[in-house]
């Protein structure tokens, strides 16, 4: 009790002390405190943003641009890093020693070199050496890859596209429900796996047809060379590509390690039990090992995701306009509002981490065995 009181008092005193210092220093340096600057014009350009932006917009807009760019980068890194990481993690346990060795070397090299260096490496040594727009790679005059970025067609009119996208979503949803139902009835009653396979096939054909038909109603803006650059369509810049590849590679190595650890954490008895029942290696993986490993993998995986969001701040080094770059660097330089800006940036990261931990806890609560 005494200890608690003393601690509390100390903490409060410390906060008060820091606060008074800050007040004094702000006053002394003639600095202001407040969020009014958010509504003033930023005046600088941002090279790439998902949401519309031009230099006449406000700092609040800059903040939003930073957040969306960060999230877009992080989301892609998470998605692909998880997929690649899982594959590499499983390959590390391959019975082919060469494959296992390669997977291991990949993981060791990637995770023992600082990410910052890797990002710069991918940018300067790989992505910036792509050919310039005039000599870039093109796929059917629709997709273009050059040292400015990756260009792809985008729908012109928002309304028709929304219809199209909505239709696809509804279609896929319906197909999924049908599949579930077919599986629940036909497959479970007869054990005939062909039903399922045929179902998948029909569904895929229908999807392609739907896309072709739906496409007729949508106007696409297609990138084409015009002056110095490709105009039209949408693009992601090479900085994004480099940051994305570097971080995905880096993340995948970390995830591969979690996956391997998760797989190895399963009691040997489980392998043996599965083998004595007669499951093949693949079935063992699919039915026994992965479902159990998932429980061990998810927490470090979620942690990895969190780190991916945080790591995206390193893209500042190659000029990808994410939150730290546009807000914590450029905006602080322009406005001098360090306290406000840093707390906003930190607030964003804390919020993201709270959300991810909340989801993780929900998942954990659902998935834990009743009693272990």
């Amino acid at each position: 009790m005494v200890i608690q009181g003393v601690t509390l008092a100390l903490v409060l005193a410390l906060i008060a002390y820091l606060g008074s210092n800050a007040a004094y220093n702000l006053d002394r340096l003639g600095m202001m405190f407040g969020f009014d600057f958010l509504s003033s014009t930023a005046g600088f350009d941002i090279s790439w943003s998902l949401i519309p932006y031009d230099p006449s917009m406000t700092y609040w807009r800059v903040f939003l641009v930073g957040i969306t760019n960060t999230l877009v980068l992080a989301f892609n890194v998470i998605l692909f890093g998880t997929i690649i990481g899982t594959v590499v993690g499983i390959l590390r346990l391959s019975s082919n020693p060469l494959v296992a060795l390669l997977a291991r070397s990949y993981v060791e090299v990637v995770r023992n070199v600082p990410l910052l260096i890797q990002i710069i490496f991918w940018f300067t040594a790989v992505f910036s050496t792509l050919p310039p727009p005039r000599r870039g790679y093109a796929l059917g005059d629709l997709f273009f890859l050059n040292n400015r970025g990756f260009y792809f067609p985008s729908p012109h009119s928002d309304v028709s596209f929304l219809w199209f996208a909505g239709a696809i979503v509804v279609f896929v949803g319906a197909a999924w429900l049908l599949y579930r139902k077919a599986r629940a009835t036909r497959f479970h009653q007869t054990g005939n796996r062909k039903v399922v396979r045929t179902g998948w096939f029909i569904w895929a054909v229908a999807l392609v047809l739907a896309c072709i038909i739906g496409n007729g109603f949508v106007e696409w803006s297609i990138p084409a060379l015009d002056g110095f650059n490709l105009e039209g369509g949408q693009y992601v810049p090479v900085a994004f590509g480099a940051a994305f590849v570097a971080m995905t590679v880096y993340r995948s190595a970390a995830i591969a390690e979690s996956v391997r650890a998760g797989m190895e954490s399963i009691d040997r008895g489980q392998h043996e039990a599965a083998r004595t029942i007669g499951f093949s290696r693949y079935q063992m993986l699919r039915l026994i090992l992965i479902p159990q490993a998932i429980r061990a993998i998810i927490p470090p995986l979620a942690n990895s995701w969190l780190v991916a969001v945080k790591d995206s701040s390193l893209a500042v080094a190659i000029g990808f306009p994410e939150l730290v770059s546009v807000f914590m660097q450029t905006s602080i330089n322009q406005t001098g509002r360090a306290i406000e800006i840093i707390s906003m940036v930190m607030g964003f990261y804390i919020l993201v981490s709270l959300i991810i931990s909340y989801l993780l806890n929900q998942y954990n609560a659902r998935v834990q065995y009743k009693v272990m």
Partner: protein
Amino acid sequence: MSQFNEARATVSEAASRPAIRIDGLNKWYGAHHVLRDVSLTIAEKEIMVVCGPSGSGKSTLIRCLNHLEEYQEGAIAVFGHELQRDQKTEKFIHQTMGMVFQNFNLFPHLTVLENCTLGLTWLRKKPEAEAREIAMTLLERVGIAQLANRFPGQLSGGQQQRVAISRSLAMDPKIMLFDEPTSALDPEMVKEVLDVMVNLAQTGMTMVCVTHEMQFARQVADRVVFMEDGEIVEVGPPEQVLLNPQWDRTKAFLDHIL
């Protein structure tokens, strides 16, 4: 040494056709010689109890039978099939033999019922409904049908072991291997499991059991094998091995555990 084994081999020659024949089995873990020239023939419908002190190689032997361990020398034949390291043998072995482990090794992410039906649906390609029926019959037989929808973590040890037995039986094996199925259980629960095993023995299943439950051995075993240091010291009918051991080592061991 080899003479020694031959002498005992005569004793163990069973009348009916052999379900399992083990010939001069030798196994090393690194430099550690854990099975030394083990030869043994187990007839169909025979119930064989293996006992011996800790570390004598009982588990290793039974795991070799089931292809869970590789061995360096010797041969094992199951119903006349020589065991080899290939897909086909592997499949044959696991179709013919079921195994029950000391730690149950149930799949903790599946319910009791799913534990039992998993092999049926995925390997025997039975429709789900039929698989459930088979599994429920078996669970009823071991007396835990009412727990079918629980998860293994919610069961007592005795119940878990009974699930493990049903899971093996569901695959309809010809031979059942048991590796100390009761040693991880509370004293009171041992009986539940032994009862199930006694029942099973009475159906005419070929069984190889590693166990220290001498009560059980006396009641149902056709023969008892006593191992020490990776060797078979004594093999014979329970009355002989348990009550009238020929070797000092056997006697010392029995003195301890009885």
